[in-house]
């Protein structure tokens, strides 16, 4: 079970080292701090909008989770800086991760 195998199922998890407990981002097999095995932490995580912009009618925003992980995600409503959001949809399409928050 890895971050990507869960993401393929539409589930967003937190990659974490089983040895030193450090969150490892972007997700890799081994921890970039202690080289320990990386596992995943499941949950319903809150993210915070750090910045955003808009292309055509679609907003995209930089969202931070667990004060470590940052992703660029789509949001369907008008976003606000500091807004607390959750992943509403995610996956892998044509090799690219994708994330929606609301």
């Amino acid at each position, binding site marked *: 079970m890895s971050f990507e195998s869960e993401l393929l199922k539409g589930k967003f998890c937190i990659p974490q080292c089983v040895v030193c407990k450090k969150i490892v981002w*972007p997700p890799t097999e081994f921890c970039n701090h202690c080289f320990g095995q990386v596992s995943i932490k499941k949950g319903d995580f809150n993210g915070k909008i750090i910045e955003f*912009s*808009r*292309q055509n009618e679609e907003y995209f925003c*930089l969202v931070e989770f667990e004060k470590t992980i940052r992703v*660029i995600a789509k949001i369907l409503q008008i976003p606000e800086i500091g807004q607390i959001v959750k992943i509403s949809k995610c996956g892998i399409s044509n*090799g*690219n991760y*994708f994330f929606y928050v609301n």
Partner: protein
Amino acid sequence: MIKVGIVAYGITPFTKDDQKIESILFNSVKNLFENNPEIDRNHIDAVLVSTNNNSKYLSPILSEMAGIQPKIAHSIESLCNSGTNSIVSAYSYIASGLADMVLVSGAERYDSPGQILEWDNSRGEFKHPIFWASIFTKSYKREFCISDEQLALVSVKNHKQAKQNPNALSNKTFTIQDVMNSKKLTDDLKLLDCSRPCTGSASILLASQEIAKKNTEIPIWITGIGQKTTSAGFTKNLSLSSMESTKLAGSTALNMANHDIKDIDVVEVHDAFSVCEPMALESLGFSKLGSGVSMIKELYETNNFKINPRGGLIGAGHPLGATGIAQTIEITQQLQTNATNRQVNDAKIGLVHNMSAAATSSTVLVLEK
């Protein structure tokens, strides 16, 4: 450590032409030797190729095409700052004594694969550089209360300066209104805020002090080098309104050259997008945080070409692997008082800033007469 100087250079016009990468590379090398026929190609110890092109074995191919049989021949890739990375490698070969003379040649096609960093999945579906640039721009405007019109002046200035550069992709001038009315890519980025990928090549010949003095009357010395890579992924940037890698690389380069930022007379900064120019100027220490746009306005209004005299990436075009080398050639020409209509008065010390992937990696060079 052996002192390293720039002996010669060659460059091609930056275009949208569809040419083979080998031909593009060769054209600037040919230009270099046509301009400096006295240089003996048998004395070239290393040939380094800077490109993001996927073709293989380009350095031995270029060497064969140019009639050179070097001891060392290989390619160097680091996205948009491949060019200055190659110059730093050449410097290191010479300074260590492994080579006396090194040819560095950078080239790219307009359709370079180096524009997109596929690895960076933290960007989600938003892997094109316009998305990190939009986030930077929004953040910079928000933090320092800067308007789109203030940032548009970067493009206006650099297109104006590119008009004096015969090799520039752009030959047009624009008003702030033209930039504002150009195609809207996102809420925070217009088409004329962006540098354009293009086809082009630039080559430079570096040599040890002893060899340099035998081959040119006006060698330009590389006196400071600073490099810093903070990450590969855009989302690891802690600040979205300043460039940490640039700040650290600039400080290292100035320290090595034993100079203060106030000593610098002419500068090439990596203006991949309008917002990058004030951010880079501030991170290098030319102005306070949030004041870079005021400095740019003053330079524009006084027709002072100190920053990006050749038109920067926005005016000159951005053939990724050639950009850092073209920037270094511009500063060399400026210090040799050989920059014709773009000449900055009394330029003695110059600085090159070249970066990659949303400023996750930066190189800064200090050049002197």
